[in-house]
């Protein structure tokens, strides 16, 4: 279990009732993929995809996940919304399902593929707020819609798990395959049944990222970090372990934070970028820093929060003429270090920091767990600061802190080069 595993959402086990799994399908997800449209966001693209002969496949993939879930836990109750947004897939999989009608006045039963919108996904999620786990089939765009609805629900939101069915599936909230989503859901359900503390009943935060499809079609890749969703923690357990290697996972984020703090020098301003890893650095200093914002800290007097959640302009003012170090984490699965979710760390901010004289390597600290680097499968880290000249200056090899007194030297290149390749 990772250290940021939370207790089960519902602390009371359910000895007297089956776990309820919700299902939402974005029936048009993945349409644009085979059609070569690089995505499926927007009705126009969806119509174009259908015109090019694309067939909807999200519903079928959702059914595969439900089938896997039922194979593992035959009694699981599936609650979904009518039509192609869930009902069809659930029935296809042979699930005796309960239907909930989204309100208020949604576009009723969307019926045929192509007619649903992001709003329908959000409404469906809101209607299914009472489930123990919500499965959704779609891509990164769908994940964003789910995230919006989850934010609206606040503390009432159930944990979710993505069934990969979209063109772009970069977000960390997806299982590796539809069947895997079903198995994971079953494992989570078993965990809940057996009560708190049971293996599989915990959740972790997983990132939601998405590309701007219009820019992507022009050859410009600009994924953004939108936030995070709580997903079953069992994913880590499923990847298997060698006995005796325990402790590797939980220690790593704290180890990284400890190493960063150990390297901190008095009088230097440290710019902590967004992410759970950099947030752990703040925690190690005894400070409360933001998950998605940029914070400026100093190590003096055991840790000082100079400014929290700063804008680009504020940040520029805080680092200009001062000795500063930028501490950034890596976006999981993609490798972005600069230009994704941390636009506050702008080219002029970086220039101000590394222009101070010292070698770049000491002014820019990149943090990543070994697992995160392993997941890049040999692909380089990416910089897309918005200033190609600066990106090129950063190109080469950068030290990445992977633990306490542990690091690697990893290739970093400009995002445009990587995606042209």
């Amino acid at each position, binding site marked *: 279990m990772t250290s940021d595993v939370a207790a089960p959402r519902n602390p009371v086990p359910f000895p007297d009732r089956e776990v309820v799994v919700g299902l939402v399908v974005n029936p048009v997800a993945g349409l644009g993929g085979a059609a070569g449209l690089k995505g499926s966001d927007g009705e126009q693209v969806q119509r174009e995809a259908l015109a090019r002969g694309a067939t909807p496949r999200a519903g079928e993939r959702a059914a595969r996940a439900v089938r896997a879930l039922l194979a593992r836990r035959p009694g699981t109750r599936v609650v979904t919304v009518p039509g192609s947004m869930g009902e069809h897939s659930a029935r296809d999989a042979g699930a005796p399902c309960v239907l909930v009608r989204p309100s208020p006045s949604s576009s009723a039963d969307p019926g045929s593929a192509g007619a649903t919108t992001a709003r329908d996904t959000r409404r469906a999620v809101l209607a299914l707020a009472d489930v123990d786990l919500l499965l959704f089939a779609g891509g990164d765009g769908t994940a964003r819609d789910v995230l919006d609805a989850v934010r609206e629900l606040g503390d009432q939101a159930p944990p979710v798990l993505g069934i990969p069915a979209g063109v772009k599936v970069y977000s960390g909230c997806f299982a590796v395959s539809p069947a895997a989503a079903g198995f994971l859901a079953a494992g989570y359900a078993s965990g809940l049944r057996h009560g708190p503390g049971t293996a599989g009943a915990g959740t972790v935060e997983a990132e939601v990222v998405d590309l701007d499809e219009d820019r992507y079609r022009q050859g410009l890749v600009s994924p953004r970090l939108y936030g995070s969703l709580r997903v079953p923690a069992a994913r880590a357990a499923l990847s298997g372990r060698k006995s005796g290697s325990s402790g590797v*996972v939980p220690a790593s984020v704290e180890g990284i934070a400890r190493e960063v703090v150990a390297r901190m020098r008095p009088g230097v301003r440290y710019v902590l970028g967004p992410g759970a890893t950099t947030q752990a650095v703040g925690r190690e200093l005894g400070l409360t820093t933001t998950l998605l914002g940029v914070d400026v800290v100093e190590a003096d007097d055991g840790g000082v929060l100079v400014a929290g959640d700063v804008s680009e302009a504020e940040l520029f003012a805080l680092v200009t003429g001062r000795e500063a170090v930028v501490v950034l984490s890596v976006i999981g699965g993609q490798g972005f270090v600069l230009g994704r979710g941390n636009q506050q760390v702008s080219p002029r901010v970086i220039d101000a920091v590394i222009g101070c004289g010292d070698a770049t390597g000491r002014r820019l600290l990149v943090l990543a767990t070994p697992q995160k680097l392993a997941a890049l499968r040999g692909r380089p880290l990416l910089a897309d600061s918005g200033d190609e000249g600066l990106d090129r200056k950063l190109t080469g090899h950068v030290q990445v802190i992977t633990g306490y007194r542990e690091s690697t030297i990893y290739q970093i290149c400009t995002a445009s080069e990587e995606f042209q390749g």
Partner: protein
Amino acid sequence: MNTAESFAELPVAPKPPLRRFHQARWDEPIIFELSAPGRRGLAVPEAGAPPVELPETVRRAEPPKLPEMSQLHVLRHYLRLSQENLGVDLNIDVGQGTCTMKYSPKVNDRFAAAIAELHPLQHEETVQGVLEIYWRLERMLAEISGMSRVSLQPGSGSAAIYANIAMIRAYHAANGEGHRDQVITTMFSHPSNAACAKTAGYEVITLMPDADGYPDIEALRAAVGPRTAALMITNPEDTGIFNPRIREFVELVHSVGGLACYDQANANGILGITRARDAGFDLCHFNLHKTFSTPHACGGPAAGACGVSAALEPFLPGPVVTFDGATYGMETPPSSIGKVRPFLGVTPNIVRAYAWIMAMGAEGLRQVAETAVLNNNYLMHKILQIPGASAPWDKRRVEQVRYSWQELSEETGVHSEEIGVRAADFGVHYWTSHHPYLVPEPFTLEPTESYSKEDLDEYAAILAHVASEARTDPEFVKGAPYNQSVHKIDTTSLDDPKAWAPTWRAYVRKHLS
């Protein structure tokens, strides 16, 4: 069933293609739970002499809580446990990749038993024979590695790595370069290298593989500098891929004043073919229980050997055996890092390794490597025919391969670990990989020279069968094992120090009280 029909025709039923294995399941308690007060294995007669009065300060207040059992029950207990194992003498042990599981000839145990009566404090004159074995084994390993001298004192492979890192530290300190505080290793080198360096106080830089599966030499170029103490690297790495630019790696580290240390724990693919010193390495180590056929002791005592170049000889652990042309003796090198193990080392294993090498001869050692590599490539050919199995990076492999079930896993939801567990229902097993998993859904196979073609065919057939089960009935595979001593264990407690109980006393304290 077919077997029933065949049975009617033949006096002994022919065997099906896959063996109908079933492991013993004794449901055996912990030995402490079997204890009964007053029970004894041996009735010792009353001593004729008065009891020795120990001083109060060294006397136990109460006797140790040892299990009290009869001989039969002790024997039965351990025989039962031994039946619940899949050791190298029972299964086709090619699945424990990186561990180099090979047959340890039983006759060598007889030789080891022959020196069991020696006392480590006997005068040198009375143990010339065993000192000669130490000396000759050292010279043979020096020849095999190209190194100047070899210490046989370490009690395990990791202890040998630690001794090497201690020598590296002592060497730099002696040269007034104690500021060197970084050790560089690679992701596919054995993690003991990183662990030992870190335990010794070094900061560890781990190089990731490049797109071709080789350690990234550009990353090494960026990593080396005045703080570099050493490079500690395995070759071929755990992927089975040999790094052809290894000399450049060594030269890069030398160019900044660092030392290069070759992890040759497993030298099975290169015996008699290439040598550590020939690539410029300053230090290397062997695990005698891998390449040189002494038993894997599962926690020891095993035996490791550290080889060093002439420049590092003064720092060797001591004592080392000397020979003046007539007499064998012992001495501790002038700047020795000290002892890494009491006395000379784990002598029974030194004797076994010596006997094994003597039986092989120089040509035999090379034949070991050639056969191991041939076996590995034959098995790889068989495994890659299984749909869903792959070997990432299109590279020639030496003595082992880290494979991937990624494709099978994505199609079926069955994970590599689960396939390995199901394979145990057929009397074999495999290990996945060190962490983190760079190869997705990994499994690592290493058939040494010990295994026959039939063994490899059977092993591949078992994996092919389980892979096809994963496609037709993934839930069945996930529910495995069915024919094993125990079912799956919940590994979550491994992350919880409150649940750990390395001793019975701790178990009683944490779980029974």
